[in-house]
């Protein structure tokens, strides 16, 4: 069929049917999105509405009292802060360094392909396995004991594969022509990486780092055997101290302590969720800022 502009069009009936299929598919996808988003929103709303009344300055700045049934959760907040920082100090340089090596220096051969597959698989290992590994290596074999150091290292090992794969992807997304041009202008490979490739890949790398750390901050299993104290009503003073931590504390007060006020449980969940969501928002802001001033 040919319409008034001389363009071939399908017969009318076909067009109608395609339109109907299109509308149907569209509806299906909207429904799928709604089904995914609604429970998340409900959970967040539920936690915040139940937990917010517990949030107060004493709750955030005092140590737990009365078998954790009263007082605040400061030691857990501080513990999670130090754990996340320790994880970042170890995992970021190692992860980004390995990503730079894999993307910029390593040649593509059987070995590097095997390493890549291994990294992807490492990212999928259940976190409790990392916990056991950390217990065996850091707590017992290296003799760090149940400590912030052992916990941070365990979380770092869990986070490194995530950082490597996201950072490598960000580096590979930088057009190769930039590298060739830079080299042709008399730059060394490292100068090219530092001045052209890394700045371009930075937003992607930062996003990967924050998402990895966010996961580390919220994990319970890896810290269970390596750092977390059931109840330790004081702040850690060295990296060899055990410490309370938010996810484990939440687990403890939700399942292990009878007669726990529900308000405190949800209040702890609110603090943890805010910590993690806050990091997520930072990642989003960094990414959109970088996109806005992208120069090509």
């Amino acid at each position: 069929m040919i319409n008034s502009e001389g363009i071939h069009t399908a017969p009318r009936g076909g067009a109608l049917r395609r339109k109907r299929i299109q509308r149907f598919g569209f509806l299906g996808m909207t429904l799928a999105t709604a089904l995914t988003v609604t429970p998340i929103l409900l959970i967040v709303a539920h936690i915040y509405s139940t937990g917010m009344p517990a949030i107060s300055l004493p709750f955030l700045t005092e140590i737990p009292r009365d078998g954790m049934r009263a007082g605040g959760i400061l030691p857990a907040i501080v513990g999670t802060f130090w754990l996340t920082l320790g994880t970042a100090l170890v995992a970021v340089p190692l992860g980004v360094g390995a990503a730079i090596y894999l993307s910029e220096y390593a040649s593509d051969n059987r070995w590097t392909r095997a390493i890549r597959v291994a990294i992807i698989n490492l990212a999928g290992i259940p976190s409790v396995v990392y916990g056991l590994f950390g217990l065996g290596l850091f707590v017992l074999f290296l003799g760090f004991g149940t400590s912030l150091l052992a916990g941070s290292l365990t979380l770092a090992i869990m986070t490194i594969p995530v950082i490597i794969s996201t950072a490598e992807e960000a580096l590979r997304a930088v057009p190769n022509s930039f590298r060739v041009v830079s080299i042709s202008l008399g730059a060394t490979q490292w100068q090219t990486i530092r001045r052209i490739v890394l700045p371009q890949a930075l937003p992607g790398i930062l996003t990967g780092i924050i998402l990895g750390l966010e996961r580390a901050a919220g994990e319970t299993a890896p810290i269970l055997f390596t750092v977390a104290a059931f109840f330790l009503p004081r702040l850690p003073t060295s990296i060899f101290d055990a410490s309370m931590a938010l996810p484990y504390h939440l687990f403890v007060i939700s399942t292990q302590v009878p007669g726990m006020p529900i308000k405190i449980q949800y209040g702890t969940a609110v603090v943890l969720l805010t910590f993690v969501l806050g990091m997520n928002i930072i990642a989003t802001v960094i990414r959109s800022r970088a996109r806005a001033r992208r120069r090509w």
Partner: protein
Amino acid sequence: MSVAYSDGTESLRDINLSIPEKATTVLFGPAGGGKSTLLRTLNRLNDLADVVDCQGHVWLDDVDILSPKVDVIELRRRVGMVFARPVVLPLTIRENLTYGLELSGEQNRSRLDDAVERSLHNAALWEEVHDRLDEPASSLSGGQQQRLCLARSLALEPDIILLDEPTSGLDPISTGKVETSLSHLKQDYTIVLVPHSIQQAARTADFAAFFLGGELIEYAVGRQIFTNPRDQRTEDYVEGRFG
């Protein structure tokens, strides 16, 4: 000189060519003839590619630049390159121009500014961009970007400029501007150009080399090769019977 890639695609066989100083030498011929490979050998950019075998010598001022002892970084500063597709670095216009100089250790503000102005004049771009040097280079049009790439090579004050089909993506007006600045530049620089058309070859060549299937078929003064070629294959190509 001979060059072979590991997959055996484009290669050069027994090329013997002397490129005169301060003139435009054009390397032309159908695609896959080895022109770009030769060009990329001249500043060792082939080092980045998958070249398995590169035999022979390239003499530049009595130094064999293919020798492993050569300082490749220094060589690339002396032998500039402009690519077919304009690739501006994700920096400002000014930073694109000072990039190579700063890497070589130049920090003097006024010398860098001089280099920016001089190279933009030489690439016939100064009038259009002098009041927006700190804008992203990607905001320029395609033709301006390619002239910026030319200026970026010139900023390093090279002896030789290699151009690999520099106008293939440009409109006729931008092409004209690039060709005009090249015709001025050859008074001070040695230019080796792979043209994007036979017409451009004829317009710009002082000397011309015809490549076919990795071999140098004919090398002569430009006017002669385009009006009175000695080899039948060159004549066929120049007159448009193939390619």
